[in-house]
């Protein structure tokens, strides 16, 4: 017996929809009936959270909507947006899919590198992108990678659909714009241009089964020495995954040579104030974030 028994599941109903529409209908009905409902994908966040919840806080759960049978959610497809190549991941796409899909490996090897750094193989085969995004942990690995790729999530509900860029999806620590009745159907990412500098670097507590102290994803594109695009996602340095918009603004339109470390560091100082916790110190995180950004941008 563990210290925190998963409480209150005795009365929980579990439904297994086959389509997104069906899942949305079930969610909407639960919402109207004021039943406490939870989506379940790989379960690697939601089950662990519930297991660790102190018994006093564990609220009964009326309904679990298991998304693992919704095939639409596991698709990976391509699309062209204004002449640029995009990949579209269903919300249920796993890290293991990222590691094994030929298109992903060829177009965005950075996602493969990121997926390799998630937990270990067992977690990679169960954990999903939508689960990573919806949990909204500032230490998530998938989120910064998708953010640097200009990720946009498509939220679907019984009433319709809307799209939200990832850098506007997170409101505060573990708070998102996801409304009751909505689910993450897709994540659209832009494929970096050939020759782009694409970075993934996770500084974790160890090489596997690690939560990041800092993780940085970056996409830098240039045209004849001038930076045309500098997009980032950085984990574990703020209450939410941070896009480092200030660094983007500083870098885009400049040549690599025109950037110097002190100016970039100053831009980072204005954006993030990492904190001390059991995993690391604020000072170390800030230092590492700066070093990694500079590694990505240095001439």
């Amino acid at each position, binding site marked *: 017996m563990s*210290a*925190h028994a998963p409480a209150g599941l005795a009365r929980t109903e579990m439904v297994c929809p086959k389509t997104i529409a069906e899942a949305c209908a079930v969610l909407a009905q639960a919402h109207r009936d004021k039943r406490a409902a939870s989506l379940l994908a790989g379960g690697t966040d939601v089950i662990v959270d519930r297991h660790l919840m102190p018994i006093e806080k564990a609220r009964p759960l009326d309904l679990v909507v298991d998304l693992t049978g919704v095939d639409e959610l596991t698709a990976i497809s391509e699309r062209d947006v204004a002449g640029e190549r995009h990949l579209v991941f269903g919300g249920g796409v796993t890290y293991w899919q990222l590691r094994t899909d030929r298109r992903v490996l060829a177009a965005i090897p950075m996602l493969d590198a990121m997926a390799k750094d998630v937990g270990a193989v067992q977690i990679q085969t169960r954990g999903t992108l939508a689960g990573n995004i919806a949990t909204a942990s500032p230490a998530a690995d998938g989120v910064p990678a998708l953010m640097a790729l200009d990720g946009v999530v498509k939220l679907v509900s019984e009433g319709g659909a809307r799209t939200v860029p990832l850098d506007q999806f997170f409101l505060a620590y573990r708070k998102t714009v996801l409304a009751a009745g909505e689910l993450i159907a897709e994540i659209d990412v832009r494929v970096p241009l050939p020759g782009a500098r694409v970075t993934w670097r996770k500084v974790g507590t*160890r090489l596997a089964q690690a939560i990041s102290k800092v993780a940085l994803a970056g996409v830098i594109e240039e045209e004849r020495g001038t930076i045309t695009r500098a997009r980032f996602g950085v984990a574990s340095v703020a209450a939410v995954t941070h896009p480092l918009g200030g660094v983007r603004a500083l870098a885009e339109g400049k040549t690599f040579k025109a950037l110097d470390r002190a100016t970039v560091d100053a831009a980072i100082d204005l954006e993030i104030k990492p904190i001390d916790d059991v995993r690391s110190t604020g000072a170390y995180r800030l230092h590492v974030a700066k070093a990694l950004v500079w590694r990505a941008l240095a001439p």
Partner: protein
Amino acid sequence: MTSRVDRTVGKNVSRVDGHAKVTGQAVYVDDLTTPGALFGGTVRSAVARGTLRGIRKDPSFDWTGITVVTAADIPGDNVVALIEDDQPLLAKDAIRHVYEPVALVACDDPVRLQQAIAAITLDVEPLPPVLSIEDAEAKKQIIYGKDNVQKRYVIEHELGGKTIDELILACDVVVTGRYAVHHQEQMYIEPQGMVAHWQEAGEGAEAGVGDGVHVTGSLQCPFYVHKAMKRAFALEGDRVHIGQAVTGGGFGGKEEYPSILAAHAALLSKVAGKPVRMIYGRKEDIEATTKRHPARIEITTGCTKAGELVALKVECAMDGGAYVTLTPVVLSRGILHAAGAYKWKHARIHGWAVATNTPPNGAFRGFGAPQTIWAIERHMDRIAEKLGKDPLTLRQQNLLAIGAVTVTGQTLTQSVGVVECIEKAVKSSDYFAKRAAYAKPSPAAGSRTRTRRGIGAAVFMHGAGFTGSGERRLKGKVQVDLEPGGRLRVRSASTDIGQGTETIFRQIAADAAELPFDTIEIETPNTSNVPDSGPTVASRTVMVVGSIVGKGAKMIADRVRASGTGDFATLADALLAREKKVSTLVEYEPPVAVQWNDDTYRGDAYPCYAWACDIAEVEVDLDTFETKVIGFWAAQDIGKAIHPIMCAGQVEGGTLQAIGWALYENLVMKDGHILNARMTNYVIPTSKDAPPFTTFLVEHPFSGGPSGAKGVGELPMDGGAPAIAAAVEQAIGALCNDLPLLPEDLFRAKSKSQVARS
């Protein structure tokens, strides 16, 4: 006579427990099915220090079917019987650490159990806690004895009427250093657990078992639990039955604490009238059970300009935590290893342990030696630096050897393989060439990734078996029975906790009896059917208990063979038919030459020592300060490798545990609370973090061990941390005198100091 059987000692026979473990059939304590058993849980203080004024049960909670017990329900003495009687099984008035157990609860439903625990409130009047060695030494709060000191030892060697300070000051070169080490959690795979069944008189007979209390669980030392249970329940020994379930690791962590958990489960079972299972989750296990003692060690030495070591002064303070537990013995082993593997003309080693309001610290692989070896090995590097000598060369110049005298006055007479260990590790790692190459700070290549390498060495020894007169007092015993078909059953209290005791005892018994390996049975330890062989600790299982396993097996086999002519099984059956029971009880007799004086702390501290040289090569990222161990060479003289693969496993596993202690692990405490009691955030290395190991098993036999074997259990834990630190120091040029060496620590050290290096 019988036909020759193949000897198995020195061969990699397959592990007898391997198949069951790999296929999931091994029955661990949590797998035991006990019909009608209740779940037991613990109410803990949540305050580091205070006075317990009352225990309140929420009147609005439904208490039907729930058993609650407190100190008042303990029939015998409310103490965890071990060395001192200072630790209660359940706190009665004084609260001495945050996880102090105060009440126990049992219920047939695990969820209601948790709710019931939450419905109990403790009224505790808080007192200012003592949370560190420095707090305890300041003596603003007295929490133990007169001065917070739990134990003190002094070793003095050849002072000749002078003080050690005078002797040091008379030397050419004086070096002073201060070193610190931190907690470490054992993190065995299986958290602690016990199932207890209290049988009232008569009930046991019905169930076909003895009357009294039956406890089965995850443990290292059944007779420690037995002793504690007798005291707690005021029972005769024959009414206490302690058995071992398949145990998922111990590393010392299941040496002391199982006594508490067994008594808790038994107390609940007695009051509830039903069997009770108490299985800790990871969090509770990390919080409540013992850890490695943190220590602060100051060393001052004097040596000649040529690098000959002359005089050593060590002042070692350990943090014992809230209760004494095994601290005196840990401290003793610590100071007995504080001089390292070197010759000193004069020495004074002074060690003391203080009480703090943190969970009690206790046994952990190495047992005090990794702490002091960290300090002396770092200090050797400091001396080398001052002399401008290669640190390994300085060590080689001063090594103990056969004929040399240790700081307790022990003359080494055999089994000192340290020179061979160093040769093997140096050659295979190319230490000297790399050390020279890395000393020239070549600008790290490439602007993107900046890394730098370093290489470092540690040389060390570890005493095998109990300290001093320990084995003489202990009188460990083993019984060997003859069974039908010419099989032998070995009964010993030495537990297999994953390290392979069952397999190795079979090898030793089979070879000694000249019988096939699979004719030997090893009885699963239960205090009711094995003699007390002493605890499964101190690298003594093979060397001490193994030696009498072999002796007993040979005695029985000899009797069978002397009883007539014919094949062994037929002779055995005939002998059994005549005598009904053919059995022998063998007691360990320490070599007579081994003499120790507990009052003066002089003499033969250990019957022999295992020796080793570890070399670590690291690559440090100069931006993130992550250290990657890119090579590790361990050459260890263990006398004889009874089972080479398992020995190499001990060396690699122990070294990885040392790497964890140095580079990853960090127990975060605030006001006496542990903030990272989970495997996610108490970080031990994974297989991905493990370096490529090159292991050499060096065999300089010890005449008192089976086939020459000494201990291999603890030695590998001793040298990893200082070897890594030496390598990291060379790579980044920041002083590494304190553990841990997390990236954050290296970053802080680097940004703060940029210490001037000579």
